[in-house]
C-alpha cells in the first residue's frame, strides 16, 4: 500500500475545524550537501528528536509553539525518559522511548563498532511549531550551535 499522504489529510482537517490553512514549507531548491568526512565506525554521532522527550527532573515541554531544547546526557537511564506531545499518541513512546528517541539501539551500535561514538548529550524539542520563521531563526540556530559544541561528525534527526 502507498504511504499515507498527510498533507491533504491535515489540510482537510484544518478546513473542517475552521482553522486557517497551514502553509507547508516547500523547498524547490536542492539542499546544501556536506559529505561524511570519515567512516561511520570513526564518527561521533549527534541526535535531535522532536517527540517531546525529556528526562525526569527536567522541566517538561509545553504544547504551544515551544522552541526550547532539552539536553539529555547519552548515558541517561532509559527508564528516566518521559514523553509529552499534543500531536501524536504517546502511549508507545512512554512504554519504550526508543520509538522516537533511539538511545538504546545507538548505544548498542557503538558497542558493536558500527559507530565510533555518541555525543555526550542529545537534544530534544517539541516540534509542531507553526511558524517556519521561529524554526529557522530560533530553533535551528540553537541546535546547530549545540552540535558544533558537541563536536559531532554527523547528525541523526528524528521527527514525529
Amino acid at each position, binding site marked *: 500500500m502507498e504511504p499515507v499522504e498527510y498533507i491533504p489529510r491535515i489540510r482537510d482537517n484544518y478546513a*473542517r475545524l475552521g482553522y486557517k490553512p497551514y502553509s507547508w514549507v516547500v523547498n524547490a531548491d536542492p539542499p546544501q550537501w556536506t559529505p561524511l*568526512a570519515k567512516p561511520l565506525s570513526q564518527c561521533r554521532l549527534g541526535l535531535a528528536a522532536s517527540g517531546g522527550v525529556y528526562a525526569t527532573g527536567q522541566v517538561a515541554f509545553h504544547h504551544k509553539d515551544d522552541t526550547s531544547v532539552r539536553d539529555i546526557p547519552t548515558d541517561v537511564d532509559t527508564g528516566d525518559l518521559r514523553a509529552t506531545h*499534543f500531536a501524536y499518541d504517546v502511549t508507545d513512546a512512554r*512504554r519504550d522511548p526508543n520509538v*522516537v528517541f533511539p538511545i538504546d539501539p545507538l548505544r548498542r551500535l557503538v558497542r558493536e563498532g558500527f559507530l565510533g561514538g555518541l555525543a555526550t548529550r542529545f537534544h530534544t524539542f517539541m516540534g509542531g511549531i507553526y511558524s517556519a520563521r521561529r524554526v529557522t531563526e530560533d530553533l535551528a540556530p540553537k541546535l546547530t550551535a549545540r552540535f558544533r559544541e558537541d563536536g559531532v*561528525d554527523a547528525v541523526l*534527526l528524528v521527527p*514525529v
Partner: protein
Amino acid sequence: MGLVARQVEAAGIPTLCMTSALDITRAVHPPRAAFLDFPLGHTTGKPGEPELQRQILMEALTSFVSMSVPGSVKMLPYRWSADEDWKGKAFAEGDDRLPRRDTPQYQDEEDRGRAEGGGSPACPVCRS
C-alpha cells in the same frame, strides 16, 4: 525537522532525517532522509523490539555512506502490519490532538515534583 536538517548541513555537518511522513519530507527537502512506513509516533521502530530498532537504525545510518545525491530518500523495507489498516485511520477521523497549553505538560505528577524541586539529585545535568 527538514528545516533544521538543511541548516545544520549548511553549517558543515552531514545530517540524516528519519521520517514516517513521506510527502511532508519531500516538500521540505532535507539533504538525506530514510522513510519508515509506520504510524506517526514510531519514527525509529516498534516498542519493545530492540532487534528491529537496531536493524532500522543500521540501515538508515548506512545512507550517510551510500547516498551521493542531495535530497535522496531511502525507503526502508519494513511494514507495521500485514493488513496496513492503520493507514486508513491516520488523521481520517477528525482532530484528536490535545489542546495546546503553554505551561509544562508533565507525563506524571512525580516529574513535576522533581523538576520544581530543582531536579533529580541523581541527574544534575538534567536540570537544564
